[in-house]
């Protein structure tokens, strides 16, 4: 926190001393004033972005986890879906954005779709890794208890996979923010991405910086939300202990 304040101080001093034009790099004080005065606008536009991020990410979770689960249990499904999944991932999704506008217009739908596409992959891959990390002996144990596939999934596989799944969530949520902003960049009439494009067009660098700050805040907020959820869902894992015993190794 202190280091951050120092940086801001140096920034402010440098900009003032060398008299850097505002359209290049505005002083932090100017940005702060902007944040304060234009507060309602930013709040309203972030709401548009946030809704898209939440819906897109939720969709990615709702489709990604069942998809990974199906891939575990059905060889046929795994072989069928994997090439499609990989193609969708290596393809630069930004390139799709203009198409989305042609197909779906400027509303919420293309933003959600982009967010979904970009955050889907890490969730599937990490869920897959997690579900596969179950030890065969554990499954044999369940079979010897006369347990069903359903029980082994809910009692063993899914809880075992949770740390991996949350790892995927953390990557995916940061991607989701990027996905929404990119979609807003390319074509939208609302959201922080739209504000960015608009401000840049007007050489209003102060607003650009202010919007970026809002984006950082939103990114942090979502990331911490995932971390809190992780702490609620995962208990008794030895991560803390191994950190302590490993003494930073």
């Amino acid at each position, binding site marked *: 926190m202190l280091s951050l304040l120092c940086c801001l101080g140096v920034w402010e001093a440098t900009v003032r001393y060398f008299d850097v034009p505002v359209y290049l790099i505005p002083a932090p004080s100017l940005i702060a004033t902007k944040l304060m005065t234009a507060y309602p606008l930013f709040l309203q536009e972030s709401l548009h972005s946030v809704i898209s991020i939440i819906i897109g990410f939720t969709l990615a979770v709702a489709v990604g986890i069942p998809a990974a689960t199906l891939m575990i249990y059905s060889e046929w499904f795994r072989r069928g879906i994997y090439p499609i999944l990989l193609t969708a991932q290596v393809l630069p999704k930004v390139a799709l954005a203009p198409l989305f506008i042609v197909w779906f217009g400027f509303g919420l739908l293309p933003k959600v779709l982009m967010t979904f596409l970009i955050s889907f992959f890490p969730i599937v891959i990490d869920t897959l890794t997690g579900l596969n990390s179950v030890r065969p*002996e554990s499954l*044999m144990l369940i*079979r010897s208890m006369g347990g069903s596939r359903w029980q082994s999934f809910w009692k063993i596989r899914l809880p075992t996979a949770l740390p991996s799944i949350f790892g995927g969530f953390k990557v995916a949520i940061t991607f989701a923010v990027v996905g929404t902003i990119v979609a807003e960049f390319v074509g939208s009439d609302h959201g922080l991405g739209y504000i960015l494009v608009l401000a840049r067009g007007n050489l209003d660098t102060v607003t650009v910086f202010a919007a970026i700050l809002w984006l950082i805040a939103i990114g942090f907020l979502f990331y911490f939300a995932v971390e809190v959820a992780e702490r609620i869902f995962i208990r008794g894992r030895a991560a803390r202990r191994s950190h302590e015993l490993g003494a930073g190794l």
Partner: protein
Amino acid sequence: MLDVAATGPLIDVRSISKLFQTGEETVHALRDITFGISQGEFVSLLGPSGCGKTTLMMIMVGLTSANTGEARIGGRRIDEPFTDVGIVFQTPELLDWRTAQENVLLQIEIRRLPVRNYIERARALLAQVGLEGFENKLPFELSGGMKQRVALCRALIHDPEILLMDEPFGALDALTRDQMNLDLQRIWLEKRKTAVFVTHSIDEAVFLSDRIIVMTPRPGAIAEIIKVDLPRPRTLDQKDAPEFSAFTKHIRKRFMDLGVLKDG
């Protein structure tokens, strides 16, 4: 309880063979294994690593299939997993996010029995293996020996007909191992479960067993079946007695002959 004919063995293994396909190669894991285990008997499968002991045990309860031959329990042919059983593996296989007691009760939950009715029994079992006061600890707070004790309780909570143990103490240090042997003997004497114990420790097999099935290196076949008629309860001191070492010497010689052990 199973309906066992008064004379027949509880577990009946008949000419079982097992092949593994690894790429181009076919590995003969088990060859023509036949034996029987009576109700309430403690039998060890003793042999070198990779001789198919574990596979054989899994075939006995239908967790793996054999290529030829059949296994019967209580006269019934085993085609699917036999569930009146408790299993302890070499690794405890405890679930990280469940306390010791909850891990023991997993057995009850999966079987869809009323968990409430078994809580007292779970606590009693844990106390019996010296884990009183550890019921609510998570696995990472327990030592290796403690975890394996929890695993043993989980294998016993539903009062199964058969107890299977696959090198359960193989990963423990020598002292803990001795203690576990004593505890296991005590519990077994109380409950008299039919027990099958896989090990590669000669000492352990002699100490615990009524009979030892000595197996050859791969392909696993029966080298010899030895009846250990030492009185029970056996003590650690007895391990130094000539009656005891007669058995260990005999088995060691057998492994020498089979080429499992070689003098330097």
